[in-house]
């Protein structure tokens, strides 16, 4: 863009640090990616700290994750954001100092690209980067790169010193300067750099985007070709002078001419596919109560959308309503009807008010118009909205589908949930709180329903969409609507994890709660805007924005918001956690927990501040870490209890949530400190709290002595090298279970050692940590037990990982507040505890809220003692069963043994032996922990599986068929075949080793989808360190697969790749879907 501007900035910046130069090139080069990541993390961390310090600092906490993250990123180059027409300098300053919504608005900028890049999508990254790097790398860049290497350290220091604000500034300046530099050294610049300097760089490929606005006018703007959706969106909002933008979005027509929402986080280019840069600006989330919007301009835009919706029949309404709405439109656009010179009818006819507008209607409109005399445009808009919002289809986004019986229906996504229509009739409704999971797989769309009062299990309802695209689109809309309307804060996007091929899509904007909060802080004079159709200038009713911040806040609260919620939503991460609290427990054990829950909740509240802090430690979504995956779980001895559970139970989900959360926090922490060796470092850090594991870990040398391609015990049931044809290998389910189990075992370890101590006396921080840990884990144990129960009852499991599916577990927002439903509270507790636990671990510092927590373990203890017992019994049973079922199970026979042994131990005072035994597990967990960069809202995100369960058929009509409602028919029939190949020597003892996900790669051909996941495990065995590589190959496809050949191929490949290793075990697990899909 403006060179002037940049030089100005430069001058200013020059005075400051010059260390930053590298930033620019750093980003550009693929090699430096890692560094970049770390750097980002550092910054983020710093940011978090800052926030911690200045808690009240305002809006930023209501910002969506991506915004925040972005901010940290983009701070580096504020000038880029500056639209060409404005003076960059002032902008920069503004941004530096104020963290107001506007700033955020700008912050989104071009930077996103980088962000996107750094996202888990490694493959893509590589791809795109390599394109760029095909060009010769300018020498200058290399140089810069070198210097970059040092940067992270510097920054780290800065961070530690904690004057973050300064750091931020620095970052900005650095960036700016770097940019300027690059510009000067122009000849050198290569393509890589382009992403960073969207607007400025003359060489940037720029595309003109055409956006159709709500008033029908066209807005064109230039956008760098690789800009992401958000950039354009913000441009448009800026043009519209719209602050409450979260209700809106951009749509484009995909290649099939279907309307899709432009994902703000993704490159536009990648979404539109065709080269048609044509968009329209639309309302994405219809506010259920438009009167709560802060600005008239927002309401005006909403009106425009609704007028259109009404006029074209998307929002059906009766004759009278058409007339009424039309009359308000007239009033808003043209003001009072002049009695002496009534508007001619043909004037009215030119306006479209209804799909089939009759003369009669026009007369009625005119008649009603008269009655609105004296109404200001804003008032008329309000009246319009007050009526429109009552329409039953207001804000309902309809999608064509078929129910399981092939009957044509419509699925309507709205603020309250999912509606099912047949023709015009509503035949079912699933409120968000009733929905536990939303997923899609190919052209099927599934929702898992919370069991009703009388039912024992969740049921899954499946719908068929026209095709995979529409299923995905529906799924996305659901995810977004749920997040927007029901969560306090968006969940972080999921990261790449083991076997995750599903969509990582999450809603990335602000939620309604956040946007309301943010807009209550809007402090600008109500903007004048022109009503385009009439050229009428609109002055706000209320004139200047009177709302002071506090008042505004209160207002929002009164409007049906639990004040507590707001208060607690300090940091998004925290909110995220609360968001998870939905899951309900139905096990008796858990119910027992209930009583405690109350007290615990109170206690937790005492420690909320602590919680907050701990959450703040969690960095915003950070770059992917290769360790991502939770294999750890996999390889842990925990697999002992092999639950072949097909129906994913809530408990399980909870467990995984907890796990991931935990993992996330520590991991991020770790990554902050040790940029490069993420994994190991992370392990260390996170496990710091637990003495033993730490030791262990440290002692593990990074050497790989013996190697094998082995199947970790974990996988038992399914298969590690599972070459399964068809879409569903059964393993994922197992993985989950394993997760749970792992936790469990760990907890036992802790338990044995510490329970007694903790419960009795408020000792030091460590004790507390452990106790809380313990508690959490004990909960999870319960979970496991329960799952086992369920396991027996359900079979038929399937899982799949293809790009064509994804899941989403809706979380309830409501979070911490006491007002929650008991069930939720329970969850909450766990989560909170989890958090608390994590915090101490991470910080290794005493927590203020100790006393509150300490008592918990005591309460917990009896329960814990019981649980293991049950677990054991059940575990055994299960194992027996499984053995029958699964040939592979044999392998794990040793594991089962562990369980019984351990159980008694948990009652007994700690034994050295036991501890030793546990250590590896702990490690396992620790690594698991680190694998996860940050807390995850959604457990489902962890589990890339679509579990096919018993699907209740004809659920669409379930409501109607009250009597048959219980009839369940499995929708997917699968045939399972398992082939196991084992090398002579098997290392079967269940030591859990921390696993490292090396690669996860998916190749999709026309009919097959092959996923290879490589996982490296290092174990310390009698002084020897052993490395196992386990590979999981999943082949999914519609056609027949010769599994023998596939097996041979897999072995061959493995041998080729690791000539010095031996293949110890190969398991082929084949699942065939018997039922043909009707399309």
């Amino acid at each position, binding site marked *: 863009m403006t060179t002037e501007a940049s030089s100005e900035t430069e001058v200013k910046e020059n005075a400051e640090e010059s260390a930053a130069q590298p930033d620019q090139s750093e980003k550009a080069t693929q090699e430096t990616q890692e560094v970049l990541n770390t750097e980002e993390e550092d910054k983020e961390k710093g940011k978090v700290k800052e926030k911690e310090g200045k808690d009240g600092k305002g809006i930023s906490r209501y910002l969506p994750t991506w915004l925040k993250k972005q901010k940290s990123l983009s701070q580096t180059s504020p000038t880029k954001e500056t639209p060409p027409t404005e003076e960059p300098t002032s902008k920069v300053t503004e941004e530096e100092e104020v963290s107001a919504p506007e700033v955020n608005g700008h912050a989104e900028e071009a930077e996103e690209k980088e962000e996107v890049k750094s996202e888990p999508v490694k493959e893509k990254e590589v791809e795109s980067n390599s394109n760029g790097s095909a060009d010769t790398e300018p020498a200058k860049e290399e140089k810069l790169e070198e210097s970059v290497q040092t940067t992270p350290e510097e920054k780290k220091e800065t961070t530690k010193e904690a004057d973050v604000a300064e750091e931020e500034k620095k970052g900005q300046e650095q960036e700016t300067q770097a940019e300027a530099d690059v510009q000067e050294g122009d000849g050198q610049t290569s393509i890589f750099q382009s992403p960073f300097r969207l607007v400025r760089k003359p060489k940037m490929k720029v595309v003109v985007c055409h956006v159709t606005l709500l008033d029908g006018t066209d807005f064109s703007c230039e956008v760098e070709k690789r800009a992401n959706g958000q950039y354009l969106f913000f441009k448009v909002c800026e043009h519209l002078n719209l602050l409450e933008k979260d209700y809106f979005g951009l749509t484009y027509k995909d290649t099939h001419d279907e309307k899709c929402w432009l994902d703000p986080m993704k490159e536009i280019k990648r979404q539109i596919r065709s080269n048609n840069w044509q968009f329209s600006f639309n309302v994405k989330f219809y506010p259920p109560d438009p009167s709560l919007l802060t600005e008239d301009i927002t309401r005006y835009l909403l009106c425009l959308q609704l007028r259109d919706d009404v006029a074209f029949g998307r929002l059906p309404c009766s004759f009278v309503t058409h007339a*009424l709405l039309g009359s308000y439109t007239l009033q808003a656009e043209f003001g009072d009807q002049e009695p002496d010179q009534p508007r001619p009818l043909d004037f009215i006819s030119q306006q479209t008010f209804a799909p089939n507008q009759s003369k009669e209607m026009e007369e009625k409109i005119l008649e009603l118009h008269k*009655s609105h005399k004296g109404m200001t445009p804003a008032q008329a808009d309000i*009246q319009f909205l007050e009526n429109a919002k009552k329409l039953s289809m207001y804000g309902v986004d309809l999608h064509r589908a078929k129910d399981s019986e092939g009957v044509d229906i419509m699925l309507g996504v709205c603020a309250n949930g999912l509606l099912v229509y047949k023709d015009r*009739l*509503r035949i079912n*409704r699933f409120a968000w709180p009733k929905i536990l999971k939303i997923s899609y797989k190919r052209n099927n769309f599934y929702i898992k329903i919370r069991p009703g009062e009388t039912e024992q299990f969740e049921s899954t309802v499946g719908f068929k969409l026209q095709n995979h695209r529409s299923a995905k689109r529906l799924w996305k809309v659901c995810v977004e609507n749920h997040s927007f309307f029901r969560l306090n804060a968006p969940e972080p996007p999921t990261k790449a994890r083991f076997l995750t091929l599903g969509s990582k899509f999450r809603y990335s904007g602000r939620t309604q709660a956040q946007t309301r909060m943010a807009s209550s802080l809007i402090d600008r004079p109500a903007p004048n805007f022109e009503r385009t159709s009439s050229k009428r200038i609109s002055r706000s009713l209320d004139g200047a924005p009177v709302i002071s911040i506090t008042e505004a806040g209160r207002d929002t609260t009164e409007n049906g918001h639990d004040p507590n919620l707001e208060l607690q939503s300090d940091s998004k991460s925290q909110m995220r956690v609360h968001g998870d609290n939905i899951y309900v427990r139905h096990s008796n054990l858990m119910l027992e927990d209930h009583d405690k829950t109350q007290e615990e909740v109170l206690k937790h509240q005492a420690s909320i501040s602590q919680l907050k802090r701990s959450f703040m430690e969690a960095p915003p979504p950070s770059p992917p870490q290769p360790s991502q995956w939770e294999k750890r779980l996999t390889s842990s001895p925990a697999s002992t209890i092999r639950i072949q559970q097909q129906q994913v139970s809530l408990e399980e989900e909870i467990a995984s949530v907890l796990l991931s959360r935990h993992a996330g926090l520590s991991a991020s922490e770790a990554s902050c400190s040790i940029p490069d060796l993420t994994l190991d470092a992370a392990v260390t850090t996170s496990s710091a709290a637990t003495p033993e594991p730490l030791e262990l870990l440290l002692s593990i040398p990074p050497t790989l002595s013996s190697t094998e391609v082995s199947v970790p015990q974990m996988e038992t049931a399914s298969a590690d090298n599972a070459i399964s044809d068809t879409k569903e290998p059964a393993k994922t389910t197992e993985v989950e279970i394993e997760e749970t189990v792992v936790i469990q075992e760990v907890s036992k370890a802790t338990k044995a050692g510490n329970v007694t101590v903790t419960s009795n006396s408020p000792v030091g921080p460590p004790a507390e940590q452990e106790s809380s840990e313990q508690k959490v884990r004990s909960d999870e144990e319960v979970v496991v037990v329960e799952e086992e129960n369920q396991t027996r009852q359900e079979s038929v499991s399937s899982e799949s990982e293809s790009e064509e599916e994804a899941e989403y577990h809706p979380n309830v927002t409501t979070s911490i507040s006491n007002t929650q439903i008991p069930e939720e509270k329970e969850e909450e507790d766990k989560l909170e505890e989890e958090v608390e636990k994590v915090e101490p671990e991470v910080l290794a510092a005493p927590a203020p809220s100790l006393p509150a927590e300490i008592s918990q373990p005591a309460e917990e203890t009896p329960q814990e003692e019981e649980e293991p017992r049950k677990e054991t019994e059940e575990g055994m049973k299960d194992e027996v069963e499984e053995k029958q079922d699964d040939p592979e199970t044999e392998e794990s026979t040793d594991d089962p043994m562990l369980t019984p042994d351990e159980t008694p131990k948990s009652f007994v005072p700690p034994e050295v032996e036991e501890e030793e035994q546990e250590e590896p597990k702990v490690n396992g967990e620790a690594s698991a922990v680190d694998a996860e960069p940050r807390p995850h809202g959604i457990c489902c995100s962890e589990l890339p599986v679509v579990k096919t369960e018993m699907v209740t058929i004809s659920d669409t009509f379930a409501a*109607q068929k009250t009597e048959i409602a219980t009839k369940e028919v499995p929708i997917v029939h699968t045939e399972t075949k398992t082939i196991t190949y084992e090398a002579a020597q098997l290392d079967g003892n269940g030591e859990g080793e921390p696993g490292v996900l090396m690669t996860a790669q998916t190749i999709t051909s026309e009919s097959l989808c092959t996923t290879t996941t490589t996982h490296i495990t290092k174990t310390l065995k009698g002084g020897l360190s052993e490395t196992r590589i386990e590979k999981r190959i999943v082949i999914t496809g519609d056609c027949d697969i010769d599994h023998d050949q596939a097996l041979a191929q897999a072995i061959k490949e493995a041998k080729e790749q690791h000539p010095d290793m031996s293949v110890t075990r190969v398991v082929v697990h084949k699942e065939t879907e018997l039922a043909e899909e009707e399309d």
Partner: protein
Amino acid sequence: MAGLMAGFGHYTHAIVRGIPASLAKEALRTNQAEVDLDKARTEHDAYVQVLRTRLGLEVVELPADESLPDCVFVEDAAVVCGDTALITRPGAESRRRETEAMKEALTDLNMNIVEIADENATLDGGDVLFTGREFFVGLSKRTNQRGAEILADAFKDYAVSTVPVLEGLHLKSFCSMGGPGLIVIGSSDPAQKALKIMQQMSDHRYDKLTVPDDLAANCIYMNLPDKGHVLLHCTTDEFPESVKVFEKLKDHMLIPVSNLEKVKLDGALTCCSVLINKKKPDN
């Protein structure tokens, strides 16, 4: 303000119809019962009196038609909401012609008339519960899906959800509105199930008033100027226990109306009138 969905329970007019002599012998009934024609007529007169005199509604009384033994149950012939009147297509063949007189009367009242042309559709007004915010349509022996669809088409502003009616003649045989957001519901299993479904299907929250007797759950709610909440309900003679429940409604003007004879023909209180709100367009 002439807002959408304002003024639930506001009525100005009522359409009723006389009892033909054929009622006693020929009117449809689910269980065999002797109906005393005179008693039924007396009962009905009292009912009309309440509407006209006590409540001050403008009552349009259609003459009885001997060829239409069930014609007194006018509710089934039309569904009126706002300015729109949907002339139904009753599920019972013998009752189809009841709509003719009804249509005329509604036309005279200047309603927007919507008729069901579809030969496959059946709809009895007794299966239509309007809550003020939405419709529930019972899918019963008399009403089918298609009928419900047409109703949804006629009243586009509102959500129309279907509810299976497993027992009883009509949806409103065991429920009705007792006030804004208040559903009066019988305590039988089918009634409770139906309520559950309604609650699940709705975006709105409803309170419920459970009465021991399903038939007693059919009452007439109005919100009248000067009178406030008015509830016409069963008498102590019929359902003493249920009356006790109604008596807990402190804010309502409670008017017990006897329905001993008509109930033998599955005729409930709401069955015998079509209530209309003909208000001035400007307020």
